[in-house]
């Protein structure tokens, strides 16, 4: 585990407060999408298929901050689109740091080196660089040659200037466990703080429908990839979520754990499914039929989903729900044995 102590303490304190207040459903990470525009068109992405007038639009900083305040989650993840193409990204980040929110700015890093001067290193700001594998695998996933090298350049530049940098990796069917293990070594050699992993989700609007992982394959792939994990590998996520991906732990989805806000409003029910929008965070929480989502619901769309935005919050909540959960997390963290 590579999450800094101050961040762990903040998140733990937040969750304990939710539990003491008897709040059954609470957000952990706000997924804030200020724009859908991107400088890549990855085949696995269902986020950028919109008409031109939508791709040209973006939220204002005020709209973003209103959503952040409404939601109250201690962590704000800024995906997109490509957030470094958001014209006010510096102002947004500054305002979030001022609010002491832990920010994961999810970027393909093509523009990272060029835009670094807009930011100041802070324990609250992490550049989470999209890296789907070794050079050839990554370039294939993002449908453009040379992006891996550009991202590595961005990572090196950010690390050299004292920024927190992690990687985020989406795995699709056909991923090779051996090559992924080499990839983990390569990322740790670069000096990133930690890595985040998730299986891909089959967006109905993504061009590539054939390479998304089903549950059994997900378990198999992650088991082969993470068994006998190197002590050098650091993961910037709950170890219990990784165990869940390996098939060693069973969790149910908490779609409200990572609520999503974008120019359409608060997305129902989660970051991946788009079944409508609520005008406010409260309306999202109060009027979404949560019982219709997750594996137990029998909803076809949720059947094979094991994605971080549904299950990482579950894993974190489990850690703080009982002594058993806490003990399991501590044991895995200390031994490094997933």
């Amino acid at each position, binding site marked *: 585990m590579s999450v800094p102590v101050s961040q762990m303490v903040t998140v733990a304190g937040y969750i304990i407060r939710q539990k003491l207040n008897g709040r059954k459903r609470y957000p952990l990470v706000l997924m804030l999408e200020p724009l859908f525009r991107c400088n890549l068109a990855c085949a696995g992405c269902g986020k950028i298929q919109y008409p031109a007038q939508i791709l040209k639009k973006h939220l204002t900083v005020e709209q973003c901050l209103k959503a952040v305040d409404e939601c109250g989650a201690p962590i704000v993840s800024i995906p997109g689109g490509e957030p470094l193409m958001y014209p006010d990204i510096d102002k947004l980040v500054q305002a979030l740091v001022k609010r002491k929110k832990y920010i994961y700015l999810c970027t393909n890093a093509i523009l990272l080196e060029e835009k670094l001067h807009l930011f100041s290193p802070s324990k609250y700001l992490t550049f989470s660089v999209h890296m789907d594998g070794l050079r050839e695998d990554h370039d294939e996933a993002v449908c453009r040659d040379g992006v891996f090298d550009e991202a590595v350049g961005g990572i090196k530049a950010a690390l050299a200037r004292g920024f927190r940098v992690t990687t985020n990796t989406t795995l699709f069917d056909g991923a090779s466990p*051996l090559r992924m293990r080499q990839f983990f070594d390569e990322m740790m050699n670069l000096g990133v703080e930690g890595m985040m992993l998730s299986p891909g989700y089959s967006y109905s609007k993504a*061009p590539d429908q054939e390479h998304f992982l089903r549950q059994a394959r997900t378990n198999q792939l992650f088991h082969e990839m993470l068994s006998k994990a190197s002590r050098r590998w650091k993961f910037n996520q709950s170890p219990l979520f990784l165990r869940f991906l390996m098939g060693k732990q069973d969790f149910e989805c908490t779609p409200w754990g990572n609520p999503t806000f974008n120019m359409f409003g608060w997305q129902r029910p989660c970051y991946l499914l788009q079944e409508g929008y609520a005008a406010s965070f409260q309306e999202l929480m109060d009027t979404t039929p949560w019982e219709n989502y997750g594996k137990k619901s029998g909803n076809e769309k949720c059947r094979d989903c094991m994605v971080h935005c549904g299950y990482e919050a579950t894993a974190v909540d489990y850690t703080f729900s009982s002594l058993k959960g806490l003990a399991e997390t501590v044991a895995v963290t200390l031994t490094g044995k997933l």
Partner: protein
Amino acid sequence: MTLEGWVPQINEYMSLSDVVEFAFDYRGNTTVVKGDGSEIVGYIFNRNVDTPEPFIQLFDEQGDGPFTIPYRDIVNIKFTGKDTAAGNSWKAWVERKEKERALRAAESGVDRLGRDPGPHGG
């Protein structure tokens, strides 16, 4: 399969609600035909039937909005804009990469991909 160009016939087999669902799922602009004969072109991003007055919401072609239109004001929705989700960019990309790799392999005499296929094939 794309709905691009479709002009639905609202009848006993296809209700307006059905058409709204298709339009909500469509990743392109549509033309909303209203009862007063006027039309508005835009991207429908939301609809809500769980209210006393069901409605759709859209951003128009200029990106202005959101505009809220009650179902009762809508006569039909035409799928006039380009379907941005249609296409097979992944296949095109993979085919191109496969050709490049095959060419390289033929030149150097090594395996087709030169990569580890993993225990389940590549």
